[in-house]
C-alpha cells in the first residue's frame, strides 16, 4: 500500500514539474510573452505601479504578461549585483539615474539602441538632462520614467498669520524665520542626515560649484564654491537659528506634519504623506534658496534592461510596449508623487492642473549629478561630512571638504586602477 502511494506521489510531482516548466517563455506562437519587471517602489507609488501593471496586463490579455517584484531600494542594487551576473536578473528593471552608467560600464545592462530604432521614442519628448543621463559610451541604457526633485513645503496658515511671503533666497529665508519666530515653534528644521545630501548637492550647484571634474572621474567640490555650499548649512543652523541642531531623519517631516514648522524641504515623493497630515500647505521651489544660480537637485527613475537574460525579439517588443504604456500614462504616476520625465505629459493641461506639482519646481532649473561610473566613489564621501557640518557648531568646513575629497580621490584611484 505504502509503495503504491509513494509511486503515485512520484508520478504526480513529476507531472507537476513538467507542467510548470512548459509555461513561462513565450515564443510568439500565439503564446503569452511573460516579462519580469523589478521595481523599487515600496511607498504609495508602489501601489500605483502595481495598479498600472494590472491595467497593462488586462489590456494585453493573452499577449503579454508582466510579472513584477518589488525590492526595497536599500537591497535592490545588492540583489542586482548577485542576480544579474548569474543570469537570474529580470527582463526589465527600474534604476536610479546616477547608477545607470556605472552598471553599463560593468556590462550589467543591455542598451536600447536596436529597439529604439523601430520605436517612436523621441528625445524631444523628454527633459534633455534626464534623457542624456541614460547615455553611456554613445549608447542608450536608460529610458526615463520620472524626475523627483526636492522642493519646499510651506504652512499657509502660519505664513498668513505672520504676513510673511514665501522666501526664495537665503536672505529672505533668514528674514522670514525672524518674522515667524513668534508664530511657530520651528522655522525650517533641517535633518542632518537624509535628505541633507540632496540639499548640499543643490547648494553646490546654486553656488556655481561642480560635483566631479570634466572627465567625470575625480571629486571637484573642494573649491571656494563648495566651501560656501557646505558652510551655509552650518550658518543657517548655528548663526541664524533657521533650524534647531541635531534634527534626525524624518523629524523635520514630523514637525511639519504636526503644524509645528513653517517650512519643510523634501522630495516630491513626500507629497502624499504631507497631504495626509491635513496641514494647509503650499509648495515652492528651492532653486535659489542657498545660492544665486538657479538649480534644483533631482533624481530620476529609469527603465533599464539587465544583461544575461534569455531574450528574443518578441520579448524585446513586449518590453518596449510595456515601457511605452507606463511612460505615456505617467500622469497617473504623477499622482503617486513624482514628476513625469515626458514633456508631453508635463505640458498637458491635466498635469498643469495638479495642485502642488507645478509650483514645486521650475523644471528648467533641474540639475542632475554627474552620473558617471565614478560618481559614487568620488562624491558620496561628502555625505557624512554634510552631517558633520550640520551637527557641530564650530565645524571646520575646510577640513571636512579636504577629508571628503581625499577619500573620494583614493576611491577613484582604486576604481581606475591608478
Amino acid at each position, binding site marked *: 500500500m505504502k509503495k503504491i502511494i509513494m509511486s503515485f506521489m512520484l508520478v504526480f510531482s513529476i507531472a507537476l514539474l513538467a507542467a510548470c516548466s512548459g509555461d513561462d517563455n513565450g515564443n510568439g506562437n500565439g503564446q503569452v510573452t511573460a516579462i519580469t519587471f523589478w521595481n523599487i517602489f515600496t511607498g504609495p507609488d508602489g501601489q500605483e505601479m502595481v495598479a498600472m501593471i494590472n491595467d497593462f496586463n488586462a489590456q494585453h490579455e493573452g499577449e503579454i504578461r508582466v510579472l513584477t517584484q518589488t525590492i526595497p531600494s536599500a537591497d535592490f*542594487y*545588492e540583489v542586482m*549585483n*548577485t542576480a*544579474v*551576473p548569474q543570469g537570474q536578473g529580470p527582463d526589465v528593471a527600474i534604476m536610479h539615474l546616477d547608477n545607470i552608467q*556605472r552598471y553599463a560600464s*560593468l*556590462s*550589467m545592462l543591455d542598451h536600447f539602441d536596436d529597439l529604439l530604432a523601430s520605436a517612436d521614442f523621441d528625445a524631444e519628448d523628454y527633459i534633455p538632462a534626464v534623457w542624456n543621463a541614460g547615455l553611456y559610451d554613445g549608447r542608450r541604457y536608460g529610458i526615463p520614467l520620472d524626475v523627483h526633485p526636492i522642493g519646499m513645503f510651506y504652512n499657509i496658515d502660519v505664513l498668513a498669520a505672520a504676513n510673511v511671503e514665501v522666501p526664495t533666497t537665503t536672505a529672505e529665508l533668514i528674514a522670514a524665520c525672524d518674522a515667524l519666530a513668534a508664530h511657530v515653534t520651528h522655522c525650517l*528644521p533641517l535633518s*542632518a*542626515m*537624509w535628505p541633507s545630501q540632496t540639499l548640499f548637492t543643490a547648494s553646490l550647484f546654486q553656488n556655481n560649484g561642480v560635483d566631479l571634474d570634466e572627465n567625470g572621474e575625480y571629486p571637484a567640490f573642494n573649491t571656494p564654491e563648495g566651501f560656501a555650499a557646505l558652510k551655509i548649512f552650518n550658518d543657517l543652523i548655528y548663526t541664524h537659528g533657521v533650524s*534647531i*541642531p*541635531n*534634527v*534626525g*531623519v524624518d*523629524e523635520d517631516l*514630523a*514637525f511639519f506634519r504636526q503644524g509645528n514648522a513653517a517650512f519643510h524641504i523634501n522630495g516630491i515623493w513626500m507629497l502624499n504623506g504631507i497631504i495626509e497630515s491635513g496641514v494647509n500647505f503650499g509648495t515652492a521651489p528651492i532653486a535659489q534658496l542657498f545660492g544665486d544660480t538657479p538649480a534644483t537637485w533631482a533624481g530620476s527613475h529609469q527603465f533599464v534592461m539587465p544583461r544575461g537574460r534569455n531574450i528574443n525579439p518578441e520579448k524585446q517588443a513586449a518590453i518596449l510596449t510595456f515601457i511605452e504604456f507606463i511612460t505615456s500614462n505617467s500622469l497617473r504616476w504623477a499622482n503617486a508623487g513624482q514628476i513625469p520625465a515626458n514633456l508631453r505629459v508635463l505640458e498637458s493641461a491635466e498635469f498643469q492642473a495638479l495642485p502642488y506639482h507645478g509650483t514645486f519646481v521650475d523644471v528648467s532649473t533641474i540639475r542632475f549629478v554627474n552620473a558617471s*561610473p*565614478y560618481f*559614487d*566613489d568620488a562624491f*558620496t564621501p561628502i555625505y*557624512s*561630512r554634510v*552631517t*558633520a557640518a550640520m*551637527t557641530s557648531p564650530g565645524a571646520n568646513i575646510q577640513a571636512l571638504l579636504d577629508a571628503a575629497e581625499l*577619500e573620494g580621490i*583614493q*576611491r577613484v*584611484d*582604486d*576604481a581606475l586602477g591608478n
Partner: protein
Amino acid sequence: MRLNLKASNVSTTPSAIRSLPKRLEPALFILPHLIIFSVFFIFPFFYGLVISLYDWHHFFPEQRTFIGLDNYRRILFETDHIFYEYFWRGLRNTLTFVVLSVPPLVVFPLLIASLINTEPRGYKVFRAVFYLPSLFSIATLVLIWRWVLNTNLGVLNLTLAQLGIGTNIAWLSSQPFAWLSLVMMTIWWTIGGNMIIFTAALKDVPDMLYESADIDGANLFQKFFRITLPSIRNQLVYIFIMTTLASFNVFGQPQLATGGGPQQTTTVLMMYIRNIAFGGGRPRPGIATAMAVCMGLLMILISIAQTRIIKRMGD
C-alpha cells in the same frame, strides 16, 4: 592462504551489507543539516577564501586575476590606501562595540535571571516580557528606538527634560551618545536569549548547596560568587563566547540607526565590508572578502583566548 582469504570473504561480505543500513543511519540523520551547512557555510567559506586571493570581478570571469595575498597586504599594511583606512577604522569601531556591549549583555541577563529564579509573584510574566524584544526584527527594533531616542521629539529626551537632567541630547548623531544608544538598544533586543539560558542553568544548581551555605552563615554575595557562578560556569563560557561573536557581527543597529555616523565613528567593519562588496562605487569583492577573512580569524583567536582564560580562572 588462498583458502583462508576466501573464507574470510565469505564470512564478512554479507555481514557488511547487512550492517550497512545500520552504519548509514547516523549519516542520514545529520544529512539535512549537513546539506544546509555545506551549501550555506562550508562552500561560501572556501569560496570566500578563493575570492580574497583575486582581484575578483563579479561580472567578467576572464578579468579575474590571481594576486595572491595582495588584498591582505593592502588592507593590513598599505597605510596610504583608503581600504587600509576603512579596515582599521572599521575594526576599531567593531572592537569598541564589542568592549562596550559584551559586559552588559552578559551581566544584565544574569541579574534578571537570578531575580526570576527566586520566582517572585508574576515572574512568568516578567520572563515573557523580557524575552519579547528578541522576537522583533532588526528593522522594527531600530524604528522603535529611533523614535525613543529622537533628539527633539523622543520620549527619552522629553523625560530627561522633565527631570531637568539634560536638554536635547543628540543620541544618534553625537558621541559618546551614539555608542551608548547602540549598546542600549542591543541590550534591550537581546537580553531575552541569554536570560533564558541563565534561568535554565540556575534551575540546575542543587538547592542543597545553598542550604548548607545558609547553615554556614554565608551571605547573598558569597552564595552568588561561591556557589552560583562556579555552578553555571559552562553556560557562562558559552554565553560569553557567543555574545562576543554576535557583537563582532554587529551590523543592523549602526547601519539603520546611526548610518555609521557621526563622522564614521560607528561605521563597523561589517558595514565597510558590505559597502565595498555590494554598495556604491565599483564593487571590490576581493578586498571585502579579505577583510571578512581577517575578521573571522580574529574572532576565532578571541574565542580561543576566552575559553582558555575562563577555564584557567575555574581551575
